């Protein structure tokens, strides 16, 4: 019975192993996430005042042909919340954020409700993928509740 040379086995292993090593390497190089210094007087954004959107708290975000209203939302860290995303523009929009793990395509006049899982303190970008001129951001910070 002929056996394959051992080096072949190593070669086969190397592909997934390399990917895992890459991830771990990145982890080492970049270090753990540090909470960026945020101004303490940043006020939390007011959640929607609507009983239908009370639990969890919901923030309204309107997309208007690339414009983000509002461009910044400040939320309590480590707390689940919702966003009601509405396209009020004249063209289709795509609410997207890799950092918030969201993508939602919206035709004119369409709206979608998305749930954002608890966020560590930090800054998370969102944008309209069909019109990427403006970058919006969600700031999660301690001291909510």
């Amino acid at each position, binding site marked *: 019975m002929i056996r394959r040379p051992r080096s072949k086995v190593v070669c086969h292993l190397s592909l997934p192993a390399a*990917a895992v090593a890459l991830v771990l390497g990145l982890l080492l190089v*970049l270090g753990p996430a540090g909470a960026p210094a945020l101004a303490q007087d940043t006020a939390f954004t007011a959640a929607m005042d609507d009983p239908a959107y009370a639990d969890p708290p919901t923030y309204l975000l309107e997309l208007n042909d690339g414009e983000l209203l509002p461009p910044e939302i400040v939320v309590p860290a480590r707390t689940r919340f919702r966003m009601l995303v509405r396209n009020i523009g004249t063209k289709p929009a795509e609410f997207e954020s890799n950092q918030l793990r969201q*993508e939602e395509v919206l035709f004119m006049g*369409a709206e979608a409700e998305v749930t954002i899982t608890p966020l560590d303190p*930090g800054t998370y970008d969102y944008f309209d993928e069909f019109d990427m001129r403006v970058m919006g951001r969600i700031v999660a910070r301690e001291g909510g509740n």
Partner: protein
Amino acid sequence: MLGQVIFVVARESIEALLIIGILYAWLGRRPDAATGRRWILGGVLAGLGLATLLALTLMGVTTFLGGAARTWFEIGMLAVAAALIVQMVMWMRSHGRTLRRDMENDLSGHADAANWWGVFLLTAIAVGREGAETVMFLYGTFLQLDSLGSYLNFVVSGLVGFALAMVLFVALQMGSRFISWKWFFRVTEVMLLLLAGSLFLTATDKVLNKVLSAWNLPGWIYATVWDSSAFLSDSSGLGSLMAALFGYRSQPIVWNLLMYVLFWGVVWALFRWQKHSQIRRVHLPGV
């Protein structure tokens, strides 16, 4: 020219063209290349049909996929595409090295018939998934046009965007011809697996955000593992392309990492299993 149209068309076509480009180049090496290309073409056409149908649901014209059903359909498409890519890579691995011998062996015929359906389905999903967004975007933009000049501008911009994405397709075909087959195979294999991992990550993101979102999972699941957004943000043009094609994340949480390790663990186990079963098949008759 409408920069936005160019950008969206190029950006949304690139993922499908990467998959199709590699399949096309790989099939070109096989004696039955003509058959394979017909299956790819069929997949592209079916994908365009799927894209139109999905775009109609996105526009609210039809509600055959409402709310929860659409979520599961999206998760299903992503997961099936990831599984098919891994299966394709395994197919390439088992046939790539021993192409001629296998083709002369009638036994491989049956397995190939199943793989043609895989090629067809993978192409259809790749085109349909991203195509749906493109169709909706183009239709919405089209509705705003008002003059002959603007229609012309629109069509030219769309074609320029598609041509930009085609550069990748053409590069893959040239690569397969001018780079040694071994290297082309190795590089595209890694690209395909990274893309499958990225699709799997997106699928599991949707599971976390849309299916498991009603419950509060243990806090550590949501903990940010690292933040490289200052170095390469996945909200930047390059970063978001890296996110789509290779699964790059600048602020991943523990859930992402667990799912990524799960993906590569399954791929590793499958490759190991494939290798062992191949060795057995090759050597048993001689024992």
